[in-house]
């Protein structure tokens, strides 16, 4: 119950007027960003990050995480009212959410989406509250070999479990790791891959790359599509809200199942998309009349939303406890931690108690306030879509440029951002996933340091990664995951699993 006391302390840190105001500002900005076409969670957080540079870390993370919650809530609005999923994990929400809106039950669908997001996040935050301190205190015993093994596990699971073509994941990841190595080598002090350029001396900043990859490239992609939209305007009345809430207990199995799926998949990288589809499919499979799904069934909104948000939130667990982000947005928050001078990893729980528990407390509070806020302001936010994209696009470009410049006060970074925008656009169109690149870029230096420190410690033998049970099993697991598609296929051939069918899909 130590966690509970610390959590109360976290609330005490949080409950000042300044933080509460920042929280509201963050939520409003987040919903705004979530509703706008061509922007979503990670982009919004990346673009608004510079706002927080001059704040103290606690206020900064509270505001940023609220932007994130807001963006998640905002994504549901466009999915249901306009049939436009803002993010890949909102796709499953449109299956039943949009039909509900067409039947004039938009308010009901929105309430269901917001409520289930809230429940999903809440379950995940509870998990973080009790599990993160335990994992981080366990991880305090880790040495460089253990950390390298954990990084290896993260990278390998991306390659082995990702849905994209394997070689494209490998390309994306090795490119990210390589670019992370540009600049001064932290162990020896040598310069690497700078080719005599003073601009490259600083290295490629992770956040600059992210702003380009997600912000600029998203604008380019959005412009390709027809931007005309038609949808439903909806106001939510208290009566509808109470009506939906009254029926909630009937769906407790769906909610609980989706929460568990979400939490489980959220801890593994890139899980939110898989979680939302899995939540939806399982709800459909276990339903009494599965054929009614897709025609406006409220459970079809509950299931994916709960899973997606549980997963999006629990992605923060490995970020806080181990310094390994479980999602793109978590990676950006991690980049933020470094800007504020905090060193992500298990020591965070020891050295920056105020920060960690303030953040966890803000997850509780931000979700409650966010829920109330979206329920009351949906009509205003839905009408943001009336603003022509020709006005929104240049404003986003300007915000991106401000963000990129502010990180290191370098004009070069604005050009770099533009370059990454083009790279992101091309990569997305030919199916090279950006998440492994982002993760590799933010973790690259730390992974390399861990590797080299292990090598220095062991006198240069790779056996150090199997030197004790813990590090040995993590390393072995990493290698198994890397070759998982092959192993799964072999097992399927001898009839052990149904993997052959799953991998061929």
């Amino acid at each position: 119950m130590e966690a509970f006391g610390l959590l109360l302390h976290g609330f005490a840190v949080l409950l000042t007027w300044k933080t509460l105001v920042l929280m509201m500002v963050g939520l409003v900005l987040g919903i705004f960003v979530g509703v706008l076409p061509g922007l979503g969670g990670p982009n919004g957080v990346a673009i608004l990050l510079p706002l927080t540079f001059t704040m103290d870390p606690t206020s900064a993370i509270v505001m940023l995480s609220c932007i994130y919650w807001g963006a998640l809530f905002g994504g549901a609005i466009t999915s249901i009212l306009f049939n436009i999923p803002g993010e890949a994990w909102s796709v499953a929400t449109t299956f039943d959410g949009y039909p509900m809106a067409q039947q004039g039950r938009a308010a009901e669908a929105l309430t269901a989406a917001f409520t289930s997001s809230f429940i999903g996040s809440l379950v995940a935050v509870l998990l973080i509250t009790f599990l993160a301190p335990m994992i981080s205190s366990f991880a305090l015993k880790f040495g460089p070999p253990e950390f390298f093994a954990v990084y290896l596990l993260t990278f390998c699971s991306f390659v082995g479990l990702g849905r994209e073509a394997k070689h494209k994941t490998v390309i994306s990841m090795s490119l990210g790791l390589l670019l992370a190595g540009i600049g001064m080598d932290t162990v020896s002090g040598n310069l690497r891959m700078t080719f005599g350029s003073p601009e490259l001396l600083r290295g490629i900043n992770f956040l600059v790359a992210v702003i380009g990859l997600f912000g600029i490239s998203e604008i380019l992609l959005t412009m390709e599509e027809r931007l005309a939209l038609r949808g439903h305007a909806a106001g939510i009345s208290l009566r509808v809200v109470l009506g939906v809430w009254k029926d909630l207990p009937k769906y407790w199995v769906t909610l609980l199942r989706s929460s568990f799926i979400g939490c489980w998949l959220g801890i593994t990288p890139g899980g939110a998309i898989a979680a939302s589809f899995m939540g939806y499919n399982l709800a459909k499979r276990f339903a009494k009349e599965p054929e009614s799904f897709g025609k406006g069934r409220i459970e079809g909104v509950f299931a994916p939303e709960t899973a997606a948000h549980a997963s999006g939130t629990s992605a923060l667990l490995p970020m806080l406890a181990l310094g390994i982000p479980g999602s793109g947005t978590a990676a950006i928050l991690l980049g933020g931690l470094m800007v504020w001078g905090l060193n992500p990893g298990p020591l965070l729980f020891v050295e920056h108690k105020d920060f960690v528990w303030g953040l966890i407390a803000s997850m509780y509070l931000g979700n409650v306030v966010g829920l109330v806020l979206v329920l009351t302001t949906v009509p205003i936010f839905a009408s943001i879509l009336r603003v022509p994209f020709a006005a929104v696009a240049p404003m986003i470009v300007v915000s991106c440029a401000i963000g990129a410049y502010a990180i290191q006060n370098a004009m070069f970074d604005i050009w770099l951002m533009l370059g990454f925008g083009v790279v992101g656009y091309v990569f997305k169109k030919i199916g090279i996933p950006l998440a492994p690149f982002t993760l590799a870029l933010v973790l690259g230096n730390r992974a390399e340091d861990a590797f080299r420190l292990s090598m220095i410690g062991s006198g240069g033998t790779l056996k150090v990664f199997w030197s004790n049970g813990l590090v040995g099993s993590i390393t072995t697991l990493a290698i198994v995951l890397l070759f998982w598609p092959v192993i799964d296929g072999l097992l399927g051939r001898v009839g052990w699993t149904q993997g052959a069918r799953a991998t061929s899909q």
Partner: protein
Amino acid sequence: MSQTELEIVVDDPTAPEDDSPSVVSSATIEIVVCLLLLALAATLGYDNWRTGASWDATGPEPGYFPFYLAIILGGGSLYGLIAALLARRAARETFVTRAQARRVMAVFVPTLLFCAATQFLGLYVASFFLIAGFMRLVGKITLWKSLLTAFVFTAIMFVTFDVAFDVIMPKGPLEAALGR
């Protein structure tokens, strides 16, 4: 469902036509990207080999880790190149149509000009021109609305970053004349 229930309708008069001819196929772009990545991998790999990519008494030299990454990147790109060359005959998926390319360029070129202008005019003046110009020329929005929106947005940015949060942006002659 009746049409009257639809309350929010936004039109897109300049939307790219669906039947626009393809400019380039995805397979071609994949080949180009893989070749570029292969060249990058070779350059970076060579640079790291030059720095020292072997082991010395204390462990790996500075170039060791990135050198092998460059090899992995090169391997991945080579595989991608071969896969794209083989797939090229089978499917001709469109990378971008002419109408789409025109629209993408309509954002990309102004953004490029904006970045260049930032260097000389400062970020705030450049963003005023970007927003006003884009709204007027690409969005075909009336001139006074474009100018007003650009001015208000730029002013809000200036007050938020420069005045309230002390985040300093590149500045040009206008700010100098105003004494900021």
